[in-house]
């Protein structure tokens, strides 16, 4: 290319100079190479709707933090139970009514005498102190094996002994038997597997997991129960939101698409349901549905009913409630979207090409109103969790062997003056779940539908 182009800055162009002084000819030009051409192309890759929304969402610090918090809670609820040695229904007899971060009696005793037994560990059954035993070595023959261990004054009137690497022998050595030089054994005593395995861990001088949230009055670990309850609450919330999503969007889409008399009738029904105070009806449904549901669970033996039966009548009636009453908001939103969208040209084009109503809904309408659907569904989850915990707190909803955050709080209410933390831990977790989901929902609304931004 000619040197003269170098000072042809667009701001200093003097047309006279260009056309008279430069004196250019066609031969002075040469075609640009492909590389040169490409370097001039300034087209950005088209950004998809979701990528665009994700970018907006990532910019929103509050929502991102809320999302991280929610993910942490999900990990706590779903993976946590694998990480701690307790389960939600195991009752540890020696660990009734413990405060936060305490060890069960078994573990405490074990901790106090730890290291004094060669390959054994021992624990007291807490029947008062025993001081008559002298320090010394004892030898026990048990099942053809000889075990040796030492008593100290810390040991009370009977001990439980187990060899560290063996599974089965877990026995009580009676005080009198030891004194006579014999061994009287009671096997096995009913420790939970958790307590046994814990005892083993300790014998191998590993550290034992404390009851971080304490235990309840029958010796169940509260952290395990809180994790379990959070899991139940989250699953119920999501399932209920899904039910609302499915029913609400189908109803709304049909209503909006058909229009006319169908729409009129369908929307009157929505208005009626809307005007009924739903929580009162929910309470009523909880009472009324229980017996028929249980009868149904017992009479039917299909796999689906078995799953429902495991969930319990309380949870199933929560789902039924959502299916009956809570889809109306969703259906209104979808109907509004559909009414707006069905006037679009591409829908007319699809119809002209002979597409069926079902196809139009599936291919054209639903994908285009996915934003509001996602937002409403996401905000439905915390409200479902709220409702479930409300019902469980009142003694409805989740029933006995199961636990949810609401039922944990309800259980704790009776002893609230003595053990306030029993209500506080599940209560705080519940608050954090609802708060983080609310904030994530707000962020999604801003990201997916910037027009709605407050």
């Amino acid at each position: 290319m000619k040197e003269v182009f170098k000072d042809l800055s667009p701001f200093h162009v003097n047309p006279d100079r260009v056309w008279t002084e430069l004196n250019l000819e066609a031969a002075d030009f040469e075609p640009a190479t492909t590389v040169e051409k490409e370097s001039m192309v300034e087209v950005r890759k088209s950004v998809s709707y979701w990528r665009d929304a994700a970018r907006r969402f990532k910019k929103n610090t509050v929502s991102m933090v809320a999302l991280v918090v929610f993910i942490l809670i999900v990990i706590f609820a779903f993976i946590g139970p694998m990480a701690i040695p307790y389960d939600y229904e195991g009752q540890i007899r020696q660990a009734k009514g413990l405060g936060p971060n305490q060890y069960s009696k078994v573990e405490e005793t074990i901790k106090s005498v730890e290291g004094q037994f060669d390959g054994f560990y021992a624990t007291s059954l807490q029947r008062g102190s025993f001081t008559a035993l002298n320090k010394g070595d004892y030898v026990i023959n048990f099942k053809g094996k000889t075990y040796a261990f030492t008593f100290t004054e810390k040991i009370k009137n009977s001990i439980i002994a187990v060899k560290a690497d063996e599974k089965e022998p877990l026995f009580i050595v009676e005080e009198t038997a030891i004194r006579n030089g014999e061994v009287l054994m009671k096997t096995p005593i009913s420790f939970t597997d958790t307590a046994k395995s814990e005892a083993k861990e300790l014998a191998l001088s590993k550290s034992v997991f404390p009851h971080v949230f304490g235990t309840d009055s029958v010796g169940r670990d509260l952290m395990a129960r809180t994790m379990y309850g959070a899991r139940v609450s989250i699953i119920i919330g999501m399932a209920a939101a899904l039910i609302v999503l499915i029913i609400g969007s189908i109803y709304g889409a049909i209503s909006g698409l058909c229009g006319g008399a169908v729409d009129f009738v369908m929307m009157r029904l929505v208005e009626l349901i809307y005007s009924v105070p739903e929580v009162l009806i929910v309470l009523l449904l909880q009472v009324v549905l229980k017996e028929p549901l249980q009868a149904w669970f017992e009479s039917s033996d299909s796999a689906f009913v078995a799953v429902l039966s495991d969930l319990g009548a309380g949870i199933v009636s929560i789902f039924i409630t959502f299916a009956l009453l809570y889809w109306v908001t969703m259906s209104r939103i979808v109907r509004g979207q559909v009414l707006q969208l069905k006037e679009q040209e591409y829908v007319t084009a699809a119809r002209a090409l002979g597409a069926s109503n079902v196809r139009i809904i599936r291919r054209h309408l639903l994908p285009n109103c996915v934003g509001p659907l996602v937002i409403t569904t996401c905000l439905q989850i915390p409200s479902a969790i709220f409702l479930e915990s409300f019902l469980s707190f009142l003694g409805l909803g989740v029933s006995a062997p199961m636990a949810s955050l609401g039922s944990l709080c309800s259980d704790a209410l009776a002893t609230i003056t003595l053990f306030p933390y029993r209500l506080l831990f599940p209560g705080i977790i519940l608050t954090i779940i609802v708060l983080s989901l609310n904030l994530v929902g707000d962020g999604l609304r801003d990201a997916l539908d910037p027009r709605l931004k407050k």
Partner: protein
Amino acid sequence: MFSYIVKRILAAIATVLLVMTITFFLMNAIPGSPFLTEKSTPQQIELANEKYGLNEPYIIQLKNYVVNYFKGDLGVSLKMQEGADVGTIIFGQNKFLISIKLGLLSLLTSIILGIPLGCYAAYHRGSWIDGLLRVITTVGVAVPTFVLAAVLLIVFAVKLGWLPTLSGSLDNPLAYIMPVISLAFYDICYIAKLTRTSMLDAINQDYIRTAKAKGVKNKWIVLKHALRNSLIPVVTFLGPLTAGIITGSFVVETTFSIPGLGKYFVESVLNRDYPIIMATTVLLASLVIFMNLVVDIVYKFIDPRITYTSKEA
């Protein structure tokens, strides 16, 4: 206007009737008779059915039930206080009065605190107080009522011993503080949020700019122009607010063991005392429906631009 009000009243009555019908049929959907216990003999059941008119066809039963309800005969308790008249239980034993007192106090508290807080936050938008209020209101709408009630109970009644609980003495005005705060907190936060948003909306309107151009002081702009227009969404919230306070009262009265209608309703639900459940549900539902009706009519007066005919078409 008049025809609109008549229409709304008719719709409200229809909704009450709908609730009564739903309640009635749900109660009848329970297998077996509500009078059926392990001990009852066929003769006893027959007698009970006769006595309560349960042998009639459902439609007649429903008619009798509705007619009796409007006559003030709400039925007879089956389990909780056997044989006692439900109307007497609800209204005669101060239960309704306590709950209404509590509910009205909470309603007033949430409005009296919520609106000024929202205004203040909007007026001082971006200040640290606005930020603090935003955090509090955001967290506030996520705290379940029973958690808040329990925390208040632990801190102020058990640990500090500052406030008495209502179960002890109903005459002590201090005893109302904790239940009212627990009931109203969510609504205070919600109303504050709502007011702030709609206030900020209103501030961007043309008439505010005009007022500013005229040289009206900021304070008067907020009070005379922005506030009045931003109150409309708050008024619509009054319906859900009433419903929320009623359901909240179930939890709060249970937590603080207040002998009100809410606690009684929960107990009757747990005991399956069907006539009480039915009567209370219909009563509370009517209350909510009535509140919604009032809101709709008030709304029309506040903002005559709203034409319901076009909205409904």
